[in-house]
Structures are given as structure tokens and as C-alpha cells.
């Protein structure tokens, strides 16, 4: 069996474990990315926690996680349940809502930046010309994070809906029919049959959402680069800026360790739930 797993194991060791260990090690050195690393002990971590931008970035990661644990999940659950009830519309609607997922992140980011939010060329400009006074949310440090989140939700929720629909279709038709015969309406069916029926999938997606939310980078980097005034800075953009613009790889690695810590916590919760589930089923 070990021989069978060897190729995958080797690939994982080379492209995941080795870089992870190197990143963890780099967090204890001062290194500009090209010169010789110098041992620094906990200095990078001390500098990091003394930096107010780190805390605002971490807070933004929590806000992002809260948004993605609720808004797209609710949208996707309702859409999946509706599609389950309306099989004729399923193929067309699924294709439409899945489409944003297959558009490149850079393209999606530019579309929202230039064609929607821009006060020069976007829908915001058109609305301003027609008497509505609306400013670009990407230019406001208090709203930029939410504006980028809206872009990512547009890109993400359709995929979630398709995943949830696939899970709902595994629920026994007899169970759904029985609930209906007992007089269950849409919300009762959703609450007492569909949600419990997809709870393993839902749990997995929620755990993955937490992990991904602490790694979020692309949309924020493309649309706002963490600004303005660090308004949409998250840990990943914080780490990127330190590594590649400030030549401070150790500081960036320390931030990456914090990102990984939250991912590890989420993974631990998931494993714990799985073990509990396995124990209950045996």
C-alpha cells in the first residue's frame, strides 16, 4: 500500500511539505529574498504584532470569513433547494450561475473594477450622470473590503449552489415525497429534510470556507491591492507586500504562519467532527 501511495506522497512532500517547512523556518530569519538569511529568533513575530496593519488585516480576514460563511452559503442553499424543486429549469439555471466560476479571476476583477464600480467608465458613472450620487466603493477604505467581497461572492456562490444541489439530489426521493405528503411546505422541507440531508457536505464546505478565507488573495490583490489606506488589506496581501515590495521575507513568512494556523484550526475541527461522526455510526 505504501508503494502505491509513494508517488502522491513524494509530490506532496516536494511541493507542500518542503515549502511549508522552509516558510516556517524563514519566519525566524531576517532575509531580503536575495542575500544571506540572518537568524532573528522571534523578532519577525514581535514586529508583526506591533504593526497595527497586521491587526487590521487579521480583522479583515475575520470579516471576510463571516461574510463567506453566511451570504454565499445562504444564497446557494436557497438556489439549490429551488432547483431541486424545479428540475426543468435546472440545466439552464445551473449553467448561468456556474458561469462566473469559469471566468478567470483577473477578468472578473477587471470587469467589476472598470465596468461596474468605476466612476469614469462603469455603471457607477452612468448612475451619477442620471442623478444618483454614488461613489466608487473601491475608493472608500471603509467599504472597499465589502465591495471586493461582493465581487468574490458573485464568482463563488454559483459553484456552492451546484455543490449543494448535487448533495441534495442524493437525498432519497421517498423522504422528500413523504415530507410533502405530511404537508411540509418549502421552508419546512428545507429545514427538516434538505438541510439535515446535506449536513456532511455543508460542514465540509463551511470548513473549507474558513480555510480559504484566511488564504484569500487574488481578488483583493487584483481589485484594490489591499487599499486604499489598507482598508481591504488581508493577511495574504500583507505577506505579499512584505515579501516582494519591502524585501522582508521573514516578516511575510511570520504572517503566512498565522494564516496557516487558522487553516490548521479549521482542519482540526473538521477531523474532530469526522471522528465523532464515525464513532456515532459504528
Amino acid at each position: 500500500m505504501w508503494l502505491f501511495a509513494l508517488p502522491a506522497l513524494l509530490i506532496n512532500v516536494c511541493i507542500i511539505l518542503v515549502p511549508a517547512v522552509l516558510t516556517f523556518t524563514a519566519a525566524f530569519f531576517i532575509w531580503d529574498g536575495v542575500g544571506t538569511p540572518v537568524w532573528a529568533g522571534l523578532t519577525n513575530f514581535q514586529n508583526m504584532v506591533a504593526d497595527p496593519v497586521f491587526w487590521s488585516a487579521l480583522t479583515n480576514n475575520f470579516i471576510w470569513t463571516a461574510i463567506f460563511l453566511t451570504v454565499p452559503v445562504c444564497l446557494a442553499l436557497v438556489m439549490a433547494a429551488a432547483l431541486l424543486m424545479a428540475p426543468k429549469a435546472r440545466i439552464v439555471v445551473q449553467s448561468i450561475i456556474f458561469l462566473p466560476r469559469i471566468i478567470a479571476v483577473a477578468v472578473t476583477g477587471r470587469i467589476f473594477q472598470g465596468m461596474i464600480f468605476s466612476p469614469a467608465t462603469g455603471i457607477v458613472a452612468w448612475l451619477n450622470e442620471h442623478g444618483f450620487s454614488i461613489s466608487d466603493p473601491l475608493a472608500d477604505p471603509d467599504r472597499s473590503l465589502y465591495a471586493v467581497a461582493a465581487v468574490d461572492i458573485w464568482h463563488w456562490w454559483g459553484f456552492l449552489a451546484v455543490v449543494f444541489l448535487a448533495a441534495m439530489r442524493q437525498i432519497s426521493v421517498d423522504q422528500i415525497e413523504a415530507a410533502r405528503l405530511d404537508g411540509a411546505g418549502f421552508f419546512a422541507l428545507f429545514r427538516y429534510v434538505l438541510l439535515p440531508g446535506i449536513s456532511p457536505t455543508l460542514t465540509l464546505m463551511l470548513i473549507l470556507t474558513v480555510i480559504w478565507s484566511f488564504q484569500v488573495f487574488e481578488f483583493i490583490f487584483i481589485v484594490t491591492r489591499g487599499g486604499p489606506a489598507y482598508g481591504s488589506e488581508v493577511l495574504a496581501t500583507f505577506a505579499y507586500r512584505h515579501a516582494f515590495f519591502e524585501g522582508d521575507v521573514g516578516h511575510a513568512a511570520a504572517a503566512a504562519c498565522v494564516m496557516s494556523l487558522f487553516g490548521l484550526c479549521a482542519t482540526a475541527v473538521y477531523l474532530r467532527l469526522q471522528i465523532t461522526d464515525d464513532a456515532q455510526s459504528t
Partner: protein
Amino acid sequence: MTMTRRQLVAAIPTAALAANLPRGARAEDGRKVVTFWFGQANSDGQAALRNDLVEAFNASQDKYLLQMEVKGAAVNNLLKVALVAGNGPDIVQTAGPAYLTAIANAGQVLPLDDFAEKYKWKDRFLAPLLNTSVYGGKLYALPRDYESMHLFYNKELFKQNGWKLPSNRQEMEQIADAAIAKGIIPFGAGNADWKGVNEWLMTVFFNNVAGPDNVRKALSGELPWTAPPFVEAVELSKAWYNKGYFGKNYFSLTIEQSFLQVVNGKAAMALSGTWSFGTKSYGMSKPDTVMDVAPTPSLGSAVSGPLVHLACGATLSIAKTSQNAEGAAAVFEFMLTRKFYEAMNRDWPGKWALPVKDLPPEMLSGIGYPLFEKTIANLHEAFSKGQYGFTTWTFWPGATNSYLIEGIEQVWLNKITPDAYLTRLQTLFSQEAKEGKVPPLPPRTA
């Protein structure tokens, strides 16, 4: 000899590695290959690079074959990783001395002193620019161009409104207030596609308010960034932002959109750099252009007259691991030919204005671009005489410069005070100065 399946599988990575080994590679015709990575270039720029540099160099001799790849905005990051891995290009182009410092300190590029001796580069380049690449008495790069911030303005709009070219802060603010009263944006500015626009503006505020001498003292560690002249500079930048001098959409507009506001008469002026000459959509090379350009006026009592700012937008070095350093040096020497200088500045103005004494700006008089010609002539003269301020992207060390760009947004958007901003700037600068990361300053006189 037959090969087993296992041997074949084992040979694949070896073959793949071998196929990717560019070091000391030879082209089919036996010429030694010289590799060169370029950063961002628009379509005009890419055509100019292809025709005026690569093809022209390859046609000019039969020993070396120049191969160029345009890598885009991430080139600086790619370059660092490649150099550490010993797999970078022969010619190492950085985005200026601030980027070169770490690479040169790490010994990733060769000292060019032997080549400089052979080709007399030290006699030919303008000293203030060549000296920005001297570390520990050794020359590590050649400056590819010189740049400066300038005041671009719509001369037709100025004429219509009876405005004269401002020569001090008071006149500048009078025009800005008058423009706002007429619904015209005083300065077309936007950083949606490039946050570095913040440092373009801060270069003007630091130098034109606090004065180049104070900036030089601060860069030398003789004056802290928290000193009153710099507080005044940051406070003025905040006041101008809050008064709407940069328009309502600074964070939403791209560089091109904001500059076109000036060209289209929606904005009166722009504080931008000489690289703006290279964007054809601005129409500044046309005889009937509405645009004009001048050095930036004094904005404080420490500055007596219009000011240009010393900037080197790119440096050219040779990788330590290069197997073809001679070939790379031959490319540099080709860049110093009159033919290349004229062709490149005609096809892509502002990108390759080599600061070389024997390539005088008068040589550009035939390219049909009067605004560019006069600006380069002024710069050449100012830099030759040692009359200039200092650009942040050339003389500020990396982390300090990054905070200068990011933190000023917090000041403008009332998240922190100018004092808090400068205190943090000083902390970072002190740390980087201690670590030897501050780029070298040229002597005050040429």
C-alpha cells in the same frame, strides 16, 4: 542500445532540465546567446524593443544573439527568485537603484568596473546617475534612463482662463482654486492601476516643499523625517487632497484616464513624470497638441525656483552566474550607439533616455517631438550641473518607500496624522539605514 521503460521515465526529467538550461547556450548559427528580461511594455514599446534593440543588435554583429522576454509587472519578483536559484537572465534589469541595492549587496550581479574601463563608461555617463549604482566603490549597474517629475498642463485651457504658468505655491493654489470654481479638476491624478502614483506626488511634495537639501540630509541620516520641513510637506499634500485638488476619483481612475482628463480639458494640470511622453494616446508629439510641460514650481520657502528630480527608472547589470558577460556588455555598448539612441527615443520616447555625455539631447531634435526634446535638454543640463531633487523610487530604501506609498493614503483619508506617518517612516528608514539598504547618494555637484 535499447532503453527500458524505467530508464525512459528516469531520462524525462533530465532531458527537460537540459532543455531549459540557457547558460552559455549557443544559437544554431554558433552565436552565444545573451538573455534579457524586460518588465512592462505597451505594444509600441514591445515593437520598439523588438525592432530597435533585439533585431538591430543581432544584425550589427555575428558573435552574440540577444534573446529578450517581456515578463510584465512581476519582473522584479521573478528576477529575485531566479537570481537566488542561479537561473536568471544574463542581463539583469531592475526598476532603479532602490531595487538594485539588495541584489548588489547580495552579490548577485557582477561588478562592471573592468567593462567600464574597457568601454570608458565612467567618462561617458553623467556622474550623478552613474553614481547611484556604485556600492563599496564598485560599479554594479548602468543607468538605462533619466526621469523626473514635471508639471504637465493644458496650455489652451490656461490661455482661455488667463492663467499663467505658476512659479510658486501661492500661484499654484490660486489656479487650483480658480479651476475648482469653474468645475475643472486642478490636477488630473489617479492610482487605480499603479499605487506608485502616490510616490510621484510625494516626491514633489518632499522636494518642492522641504527642499532638496533637507531631503539629502534626511537620506544621509543627518535630519530625521519627522523634522518640520517634512511635516509641512505632508500636511500640504493632505490639504491639497482634502481640498479636492486631485479630483474626487483619485483612487478610481487609472494613470491614463486621469492624464487624459488634462488633455481633454476636464483637468488643468498633472504632476507626472517624463515617462508620460511615451504614451501616444496623450497626443503630446503632435504639432497641434494642447499640452505643455515645465519643471515643477517651488512649493515652499526652501526652494527658490522650478525643480527637477533626479531619477533613474531602470538599471542594467550582468548576473553573477552569467556565462556570457562579454555578450551582455556588448549589448550595453550597442545601447550607447547613436543609431540605437535615436531609433528608441523616436519609437518609444521617455523610456530609454540614456544619461550619456556623448549622446547629447540635441541629437533628439530630429525626432519631431518638441515637448520631449526640450524636457530632455533641460534634464540633461540640470543633472549635469547638479541641480536636482531626489525621487523616492531611486533613493528611498524598499520598506521605507513601500510605507511612503501605502501610509500616505492613511494620512489623506484621515486615518492617521502626518506626525504618526513620519514617525513610522523614520523608524523604518533608521532600520534600513542600519542594515545598509539605503541606495547611494550622488555627490551634490556633477
